[in-house]
């Protein structure tokens, strides 16, 4: 018994010493061999690793990965710095795919405040989309993300700022979650008869319809002022260029025009990622927030966190960046791509693109 254990330990050390560090990067092939029986031999695989976007840049530069799929401004940073090039951007693969949204806690029912924030948001989006403001937008984007103007200019080309996301594109994302077995709960188990009913409630268009309708009739229209004693906590993600509207609304004074004073009755809270925003929604730590539509949908269903989407922030704005020597998606067979996580909209986008090319993504 003791002898056996000792020899096991010695063996483990032998493995450790002889295996070294560097050769393990190629182990992916062996690992896949185990699952080989389930798949036809001719199937072309692409390996996925999960990595936070800042590390993706380092990994691509070092040659540890062959490409990564992330959101702006990470993509344009890598391209501007010369580490890689775009193989595709969102619109090449999936036109108008939803991305960041403005969501509210279902328990937050102050109609005046919701209307005021949606108004400020729409005003900001229209400001961003007005070609006359392009210089100013570039400056704001650079200030918000801390990146230089070359980088944000390239980023902005790939982002479409919208006022409300398309319902059918959201449903397509939802279907990919169902197919990918990412949903532990079903819409039925959280109290809806089917996915249609779920989306009717989840995508709460009523406020947006009213505000945009009024603005279309009269561009100078303004909703009622939020009283000074009504407090609202607004969350957003740190330096996420998709959520530029929030920064613009603040700087252009749209919040103050409807009685929301940053630091007094408007409290902004910064979060590292959408999952953290959803936890804050659950803990009733935030009333409204900008976050990715993907974590919002996933956690709305899987963890039954009661949120509704009252406006869109952007569509598209993601892309696959690869090493300079790769020229086509078909070349990605056997290569490794970093994704921000399973179930993210980037993951869905990549999955879609690879399958159309006859490639199958597997997690390394």
């Amino acid at each position: 018994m003791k002898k056996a254990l000792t020899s096991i330990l010695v063996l483990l050390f032998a493995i450790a010493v002889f295996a070294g560090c560097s050769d393990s990067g190629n182990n992916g092939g062996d690992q896949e061999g185990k699952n080989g029986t389930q798949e036809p031999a001719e199937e072309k695989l692409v390996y996925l690793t999960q990595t936070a976007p800042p590390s993706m840049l380092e990994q691509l530069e070092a040659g540890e990965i062959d490409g990564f799929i992330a959101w702006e401004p990470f993509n344009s940073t890598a391209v501007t710095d010369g580490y890689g090039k775009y193989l595709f951007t969102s619109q090449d693969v999936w036109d108008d795919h939803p991305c960041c949204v403005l969501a509210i806690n279902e328990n937050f029912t102050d109609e005046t405040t919701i209307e005021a924030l949606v108004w400020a948001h729409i005003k900001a989006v229209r400001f961003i989309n007005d070609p006359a403001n392009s210089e100013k937008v570039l400056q704001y984007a650079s200030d918000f993300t801390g990146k230089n103007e070359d980088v944000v200019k390239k980023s902005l080309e790939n982002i479409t700022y919208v006022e409300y996301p398309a319902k059918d594109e959201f449903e397509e994302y939802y279907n990919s979650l169902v197919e990918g077995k990412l949903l532990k709960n079903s819409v039925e188990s959280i109290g809806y008869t089917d996915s249609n009913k779920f989306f009717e409630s989840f995508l709460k268009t009523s406020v947006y319809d009213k505000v945009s309708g009024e603005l279309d009739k009269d561009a100078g229209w303004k909703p009622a002022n939020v009283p000074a004693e009504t407090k609202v906590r607004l969350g957003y993600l740190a330096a996420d260029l998709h959520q530029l509207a929030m920064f613009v609304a603040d700087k252009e004074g749209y919040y103050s025009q409807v009685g929301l004073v940053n630091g007094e009755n408007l409290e902004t809270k910064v979060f590292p990622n959408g999952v953290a925003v959803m936890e804050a929604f659950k803990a009733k730590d935030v009333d409204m927030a900008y976050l990715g539509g993907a974590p919002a949908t996933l956690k709305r269903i899987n963890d039954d966190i009661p949120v509704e989407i009252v406006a869109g922030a952007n569509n598209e704005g993601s892309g696959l960046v690869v090493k300079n020597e790769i020229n086509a998606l078909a070349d990605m067979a056997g290569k490794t791509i970093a994704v921000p996580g399973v179930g993210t909209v980037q993951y869905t986008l990549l999955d879609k693109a690879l399958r159309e090319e006859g490639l199958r993504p597997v997690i390394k």
Partner: protein
Amino acid sequence: MGLFDYSTAEQVTGRSAGLGLFKRFNDKLLRIMSAVTILIIWQLTASLQLLELPSPITTLGVFIDLIISGDPLYNRTLPEIVWASLQIVIRACAVSIIVAVSLGILMGAVQPLRKYLEAILELLRPIPPLAWIPLAYVIFANTGSPTEYVQVFVVFVGAFFPILLNTIHGISMINRIYLEAARTMGASPRQILRQVMLPAALPSIFNGIRVGFGVGWMSIVAAEFVGGKLGIGYYIWSSYSVGGRTAEIISGMVAIGIVGSLINKVILLTEKRLVPWR
């Protein structure tokens, strides 16, 4: 020989001190009772819906399912996921043992060297392994696979200090009489090192290795935070991001616990065999 054998070997072989109360409960019964207590509290919390926890039975089902057929989302079984992490920990700890034990013996035996290095090591010791990640990326930027190196490095840092400190302690606690006696009888420095110092310090070194491996295994969750191949730390984190997978998260945690205590046991048994004079 249980979870808390992180102290001295006296408790492994001899009996522990105590007030002598509740003597009629034997050890085995107490062990079973503690497990039952946890399960009852867990079951109560789940069935009274105090927290949104899956029940112990549901979790056990998921745990067994993960071991046998794996997680469909990642196409991996739990042992495969744990093994990916364990490989990194073994590699990092092997390097850590080699570096820390040799450095520890030198620092224990050569006073000026110890004084020379002490200040810098005392400064580095309180830095948590996680804080090294960004700098580690810079250090290993040109290695071709920085993530792999960063992960190994983070675990290495976690394991390094317990091993080093215990080795120094083991060497410096040797009774001077033994060293003087060996010297009087004409032993060379090499003989003193190999035949007096090392055997005397070995129990303490093994203590360090055990604690070091334990800390290293804990650091893997932090190390996998940077991403890379699917290991147990990232599995837990990724399951959390997707949501609704509390049973999978608990299963992952249980797997970490089981593997951690197994590592501890294996090292203890090796120590008993290699250090019979303890």
